[in-house]
């Protein structure tokens, strides 16, 4: 490989790239080189600059300094149009689909205007269907993207990126919203493209994926890049050390559960996507819900929290039936929820860290007539920032300036700030780097230690096995299995999640 590397011309060569946002340096002197037919992993903590670097390559951002060369020739990428002409395709970390358009239009959005002035609906749909099938999925090309599940949307993103002949394909955390099944199919596609000589830059926080598929890996830390390593010649610890600057003792902190009385009981809950789910959580217990994407886990907890209207079923707190009509009532009764979509539902990006953290417990920071007791609030929030190790200079900085992992900690801090009996955490570490993950697990442990009943949803089976005392497995809006700690294995969970007859994703 190295020999090859010396002889071949790099497909992508980013040298000494720098970029800052309003005086804050996101990238300083970053270098990355990748060969044709190489799968190159890009890793780093939240906020290390991975997405920024890729956006520079795709023309969504402009670099401040440095040099980009494609196939050995220096190029100037001023906008997304330029990068497309150079054969660079990208799947962004945030969805870049148009919800009100059909799947077919989204797949060909980049080339819509090349098709001429008039829509050729029939051929457009046919081509889209063929393309999606060729990558192993089945989605109705006439469906509106707004009506698709998140996983299906990601597949549309992939199809969109593959709709053009690309020399370079960038994938920014594509697996975060895919189930194991879909991830496997994605890897099959990537390997096929690799054989065709396409260069793939793959961003992920999942180390296992890197070892499964990547040839080489570059790590970003504090806006600087490491040497590229051959994956075959390195190991987890080495990469983690490059990312964090230290090694990680154990991914999952040990925990000695002290389980008390039942706190939350849900009976026969039903909503749009949920068909009859019952569960109980006890004080100090961490209950996990596993399942494939689209199995209805989020809908279950949203119905409990009264964020969505439930159609049937009852909720009991400490054995007593409660009627919850909206999240306000749920919070009043001592339930807290960290939602799955951090940016849309969790943090308020334009508000300060302090204001975000206070939001769930405003009574705690106000005096008479709702006037804010500023000193008390600051002191309180500073304590939480210290305790949760949120990386920031000041509590008055807008939450939007934090990295994803730190934003997630802010949302957790919001509920830490209030005495809750039940805390629901939907995808606690989606898109969070390994270092921050461990810290979040510690926080969950601490909450449980205080006697809080905790309900965790995660798409990462390993995560659930590491932190939960009990795991429910959902499929098609129902609970299909319950596992005690000693029964935890990946296989076990997957078997329940997939069911006897596995079915491909489809719209109807």
């Amino acid at each position, binding site marked *: 490989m190295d020999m090859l590397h010396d002889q071949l011309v790099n497909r992508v060569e980013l040298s000494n790239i720098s970029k800052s946002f309003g005086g804050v340096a996101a990238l300083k002197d970053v270098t990355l080189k990748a060969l044709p037919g190489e799968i190159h992993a890009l890793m780093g903590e939240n906020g290390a600059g991975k997405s920024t670097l890729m956006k520079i390559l795709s023309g*969504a951002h402009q670099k401040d300094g440095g040099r980009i060369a494609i196939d050995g020739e220096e190029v100037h990428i001023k906008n997304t149009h330029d990068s497309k002409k150079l054969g660079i395709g990208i799947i962004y970390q945030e969805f870049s689909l148009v919800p009100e358009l059909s799947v077919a239009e989204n797949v060909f959005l980049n080339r819509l205007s090349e098709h001429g002035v008039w829509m050729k609906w029939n051929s457009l749909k046919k081509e889209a269907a063929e393309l999606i099938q060729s990558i192993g999925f089945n989605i109705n090309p006439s469906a509106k993207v707004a009506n698709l599940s998140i996983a299906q949307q990601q597949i549309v993103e992939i199809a969109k990126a593959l709709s053009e002949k690309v020399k370079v394909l960038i994938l920014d955390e594509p697996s975060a919203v895919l189930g194991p099944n879909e991830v496997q199919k994605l890897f099959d596609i990537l390997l096929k493209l690799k054989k065709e000589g396409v260069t793939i830059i793959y961003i992920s926080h999942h180390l296992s994926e890197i070892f499964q598929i990547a040839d080489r890996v570059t790590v970003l830390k504090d806006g600087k890049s490491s040497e590229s390593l051959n994956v075959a010649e390195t190991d987890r610890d080495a990469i983690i050390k490059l990312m964090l600057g230290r090694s990680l003792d154990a991914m999952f902190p040990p925990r000695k559960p002290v389980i008390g009385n039942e706190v939350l009981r849900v009976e026969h809950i039903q909503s749009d996507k949920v068909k009859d789910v019952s569960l109980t959580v006890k004080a100090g217990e961490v209950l996990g819900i596993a399942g494939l994407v689209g199995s209805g886990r989020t809908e279950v907890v949203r119905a409990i929290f009264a964020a969505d209207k439930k159609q049937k079923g009852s909720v009991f707190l400490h054995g007593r039936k409660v009627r919850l009509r909206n999240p306000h009532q749920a919070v009043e009764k001592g339930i807290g929820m960290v939602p799955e979509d951090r940016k849309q539902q969790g943090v308020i990006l334009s508000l300060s860290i302090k204001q975000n953290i206070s939001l769930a417990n405003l009574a705690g920071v106000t005096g008479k007539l709702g006037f804010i007791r500023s000193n008390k609030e600051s002191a309180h929030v500073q304590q939480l920032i210290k305790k949760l190790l949120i990386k920031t200079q000041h509590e008055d900085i807008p939450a939007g300036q934090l990295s994803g992992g730190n934003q997630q900690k802010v949302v957790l801090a919001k509920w830490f700030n209030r005495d809750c009996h039940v805390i629901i955490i939907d995808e606690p570490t989606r898109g969070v780097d390994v270092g921050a993950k461990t810290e979040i697990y510690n926080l969950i442990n601490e909450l449980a230690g205080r006697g809080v009943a905790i309900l965790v949803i995660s798409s990462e089976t390993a995560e659930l096995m590491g932190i939960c005392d009990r795991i429910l497995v959902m499929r098609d809006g129902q609970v299909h299995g319950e596992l005690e700690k000693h029964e935890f294995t990946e296989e076990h969970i997957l078997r329940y999640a997939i069911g006897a007859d596995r079915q491909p994703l489809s719209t109807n």
Partner: protein
Amino acid sequence: MKSSLKRTIHFIIKHNTIIIFLLMLVLSALASNAFFTPNNLANLIRQVAPVGIISMGMLLVILTGGIDLSVGSIVAMIGVLCALFTQSMSLPLAIVASLLAGIVVGSISGYLVSVQKMAPFIATLALMTIVRGLGFIFSKGAPVMVADSASALTDFGSGSLLGIPNPAIILFLVFGITAVLLKYNIYGRILIAIGSNEEAVRLSGIKVPVYKFSVYAIIGGLAAISGMIGTARTGVGSPNIGIGLELDVIAAVVIGGTSLMGGKGSALNTFLGVLILGMIGNIMNLMDIASYSQQVIKGLIIILAVLLQRFQEK
């Protein structure tokens, strides 16, 4: 057979503006014998033409997530300019010049919104004031007569083809073009896409500012056409017409189920919205409802229509 029935039902639910429209139609017919006379129907369609023509432009603007408050003023200013132009140039030239003037005004809004990234509400609000003032300045405050040499214009304004008043024919044309554009043309699809997720469209390499600019230029042109029709009908260009017209146009678009957030809306429903609004006024006049009560009832019907729209979302 069965599937066609199903499709019909689906169609009606999706376009439930049609239900409101049919309801209004039945109510109107019951309320006044004068309603279903050819004469009154011709009146109705002629009366809604200015709002209708502009509403198609407003639909495009709103689809991109924008709004245009300046159209009423453009109608007035172009009405004045058109009359003035007939006094100094040939009619075809006067028409072209008026149309261009409308497009120029629209383009200024378009520039402020797309390049300067001003909020459409405030950019077009400022232009509403400016253009209204210009209309008064050009006309010296008094209505301007169309030159006698341009009698073809006034003939056109009061004329009709196969019983359909000419302004209505223009309305049908504009409606047809918009409907086709939105359904079968790339341009329309991109507008919807911009209103739905502007950033995604930008990242796809589509020049979003060009499209946003274009919708304001178009609505400027359509407002100019409406202004000319007004002058053609009355024979004078008056600087104080069209006050509040923008609100009628927006109300019509929204009654047609278009979301003010952008990305969602259809030409057919907008057209029905225009007719519904026009019918409200027409039937109340026919029923001798006092002018003040008319305002109250009109407001109530707008609220009702929008509340009914909400079923569509299900």
